[in-house]
């Protein structure tokens, strides 16, 4: 019985459909801005280095791509140390 219920309410998480969605999300972001996944790391490093050369950083900086519709933006969050 349980097996069959599981079949009916197909387990979403490791379905090939979910996998396809995850892969597409990533590849479309990179395709649209014309960059490889390598760029993310380079960007993160360079941005942090630039900021750190002027002010003191505290905690873990984060750099993400965010998509709104068909547009992509860089979302940068860098916690700075207060005096």
């Amino acid at each position, binding site marked *: 019985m349980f097996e069959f219920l599981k079949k009916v309410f197909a387990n979403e998480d490791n379905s090939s*459909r979910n996998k396809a*969605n995850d892969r*597409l*999300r990533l590849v*479309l972001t990179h395709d*649209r801005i014309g960059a490889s996944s390598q760029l993310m790391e380079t960007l993160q490093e360079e941005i942090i280095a630039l900021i750190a050369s002027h002010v003191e950083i505290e905690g873990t900086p984060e750099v993400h791509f965010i998509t709104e519709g068909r547009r992509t933006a860089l979302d940068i969050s860098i916690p700075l140390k207060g005096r």
Partner: protein
Amino acid sequence: MEKKTPDSQVIVVTSGKGGVGKTTTVANLATGLAKLGYSVVVMDLDIGLKKLDLILGLENRVIYDIIQVVEGECSLKQALVKDKRFPALYMLPAAQTRNKDDITTTQVEAICEELKPDFDFIFIDCPAGIEQGFRNAIAAANKAIVVTNPEVSAVRDADRIIGMLESADFKDIKLLVNRLRPEMVRSGDMLSIEDLMEHLCIELLGVVPEDRSVVISTNRGEPIILNEHSSAAHAFNNIVQRLLGNNVDLMTLEEDSFWRKLKRNLGFKN
């Protein structure tokens, strides 16, 4: 022939990836509109690899082709092939032994301008790819239908094409999802319409299910839209209505509904 509408819709059907159903879409939407009495011409720009004549069943009636038109060997009117089933449907054939660089965007635009006074709808069957053939196909169009399949590589190409259409200043870009298998979506093995919309973020024109009778109709040279019992025909008819500006709900692709599945799993025969 009589034109029904003052303006002409010039619609390019494109996809990036090959074999997703562009030519099938062109043949069926054109036939569906011609059946309703609209004057329609289909332009095959898949030069060197033409298929539209076969899908429409017009291959034996082709005399001239579009390259002969631009090279002045015949007039545009002489090259147009008339469909015997529908007096309002015409095809401008591609050349099979030439290639995509044998015609320019300016020449395609000029042909479209010449066709506009006589036709309500001009469909352009775009070749796969993003090279010259694609540029020619989009040059004269004011609307684009992007065809995709619920499959990662087709979606990726569709996204690229949508980006290129946006850069070319297209305002009217709509998505047609072809070969959807609802039962696979339900079992978690195929991208759903919602998934595709989330990735591609453009307006949905319609959804055509996978349908074995498409192959049969292609064998016969009779567009599937003429076969009233097929689900693909139903889907194409709905899309025809949407092109005419009528709101039609998305068809419920429920052949393999929850209850059927439940019954089957409990050991009932459908």
